[in-house]
């Protein structure tokens, strides 16, 4: 991997110049809410530590889209969501989140929609300083080594730019004279100091490493009932979590003809009651406590396939989102201390 230096003055021109590689996307404030959205001007970009409301997954695993059109001749795939994009301002935990989703959507057989969006998108990562609820240091996702085309670390007087792919290198070549190959010892020292400063800034942490065992041991714990009683089953935690992949599929008929319509895919949540309902109304996971248990097993014990690693990337969104304070912090703490949180 190559590491280059860039002066902050060039940032705007460089980023806006990437338009030739695809439509620019990035965190942008709309009606007060930070969202990944198309970027029209540099000033719209929000490049600090703040989390977007919905994670990066929304650009690769869209909330709601048509998989197929069908008519009397059968099904035809609808790939109209594909678009060449350059996504700017992606934090390390977000990149880790996407790498986790890759483990689901790109393993055989790959999901063609996710794969297509992934293939058509460049990721320009940006360093961040930990936000109030950042937990990525606990989950080991505070830095990234892969999953980006370029990654910018903001060291105030200059940027260090990691080049993560040949596509990223092509972008650099566009504006070659903005970049300096000569990274000095002093620069490295500044970077190390920045890392240390950043490490010290984390305000919250939790015992992520021991959670797989603790979850396993707590299978019958009444702590689950405590959280189950509180949970509103609103599903917000699953929507905002970067590594939740569940979706549902529904057919929508056209009004005009009997045989034509579309097959729609939409995010779903294991927090909803009908999620694991099977024939005859038998529900394997009706109690709210059981739904939460499944979720936290995925986040903190193992994810999606046998012996996989836990899915939590420490973004802190569940901490910010749950109206009744059920999140990786409160749950891991309660399970570890065997005590329910104080009201």
């Amino acid at each position, binding site marked *: 991997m190559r590491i280059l230096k860039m002066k902050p003055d060039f940032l705007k021109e460089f980023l806006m110049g990437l338009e030739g590689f695809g439509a620019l996307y990035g965190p942008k404030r709309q009606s007060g809410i930070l969202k990944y959205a198309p970027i029209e001007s540099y000033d719209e970009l929000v490049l600090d530590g703040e989390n977007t409301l*919905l994670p990066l997954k929304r650009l690769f695993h869209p909330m709601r889209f048509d998989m197929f059109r069908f008519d009397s001749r059968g099904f035809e795939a609808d790939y109209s969501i594909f678009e060449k994009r350059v996504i700017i301002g992606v934090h390390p935990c977000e990149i880790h989140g996407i790498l986790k989703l890759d483990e689901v959507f790109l393993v055989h057989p790959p999901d063609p929609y996710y794969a297509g969006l992934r293939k058509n998108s460049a990721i320009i990562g940006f360093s961040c300083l930990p936000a109030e609820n950042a937990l990525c240091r606990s989950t080991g996702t505070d830095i990234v080594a892969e999953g980006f085309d370029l990654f910018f670390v903001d060291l105030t007087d200059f940027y260090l730019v990691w080049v993560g792919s040949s596509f990223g290198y092509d972008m650099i070549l566009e504006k070659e004279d903005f970049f300096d190959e000569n990274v000095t010892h002093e620069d490295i020292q500044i970077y190390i100091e920045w890392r240390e400063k950043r490490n010290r800034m984390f305000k919250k942490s939790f015992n992520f490493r021991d959670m797989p065992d603790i979850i396993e041991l707590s299978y019958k714990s009444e702590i689950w009932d405590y959280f189950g009683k509180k949970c*509103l089953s609103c599903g917000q935690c699953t929507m905002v979590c970067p590594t939740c992949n569940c979706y549902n599929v529904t057919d929508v*008929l056209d009004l*005009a003809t009997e045989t034509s319509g579309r097959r729609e895919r939409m995010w779903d949540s294991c927090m909803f009651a009908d999620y694991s309902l099977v024939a005859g109304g038998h529900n394997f996971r009706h109690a*709210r406590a059981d739904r939460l248990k499944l979720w936290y097993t995925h986040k903190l014990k193992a994810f999606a396939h046998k012996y996989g690693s836990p899915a939590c990337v420490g973004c802190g969104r569940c901490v910010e989102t749950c109206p009744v304070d059920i999140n990786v912090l409160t749950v891991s703490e309660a399970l570890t201390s065997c005590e329910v949180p104080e009201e």
Partner: protein
Amino acid sequence: MPEYKPRVGIYGFTGCAGDQLLIIHTEDRLLDFFNAVEMRSFVMASSNPLETEIDIAFVEGSISTEEERQHIKEIRDRAGVLVAIGNCAVSGGPQAMFAKDGSFARRLKQVYGDIKFITNPVEGAPLDEVVSVDYYLPGCPISQSQAMALIARLIHGADPEEFPHPVCHECKLNENLCLLLDQKFCLGPLTLGGCHSACPNNGLPCVGCWGPNPDGNFEEQLGLLESFGIPHEDIIRRVRNFGGYKILAHIEKLSGKR
């Protein structure tokens, strides 16, 4: 093969008639709709309804008079499938916010003490208090896309799909910040989705017009809203406002607890 067109009737009872208007005003799809069906009776659109056997009856409004009771029974007899449209037909609407008060008032008083309700109740009942209802299109007013999806399935002989999720589901897909975090009086988690989270999209709390979400955690949400300083009786009143008859089971759950 000459295409069979389902015979459709649209009827309105006590209510605001807004839902039927909505169907008429869906102009881009209106032609498709009229082409796909044989309109037998459209109380608002045609002044001369044909009262014959029909495949699908869309019925709006709640049942408030004996005459209406007879009329809905008669429609039920003639209709293959009966769809209740709008909050009034589904839950009784605001007219039913004191639903079943005769026996209920006493219990309510026991449970909640003396609460003054604002409006004077007109006894209105949802359709399924009188006849059996096959499908529901809740809302005040109903959602165009939900209505069209249901109608398309019905007229093409497929069974409609439910959306048994809270308003919060769509609210999050629409990237709204949760109003509960600002201690606002939102009933989203207790309310059935399908409206595309119309109110939170505009920064307004959900007041529950789609009717209760059967999976709602009423106990906990009540406690949460009270912790915001919202008086107990205000919460009950709002929950009942659109919950009508459908909320009673859940209210009783609450009273059982306290």
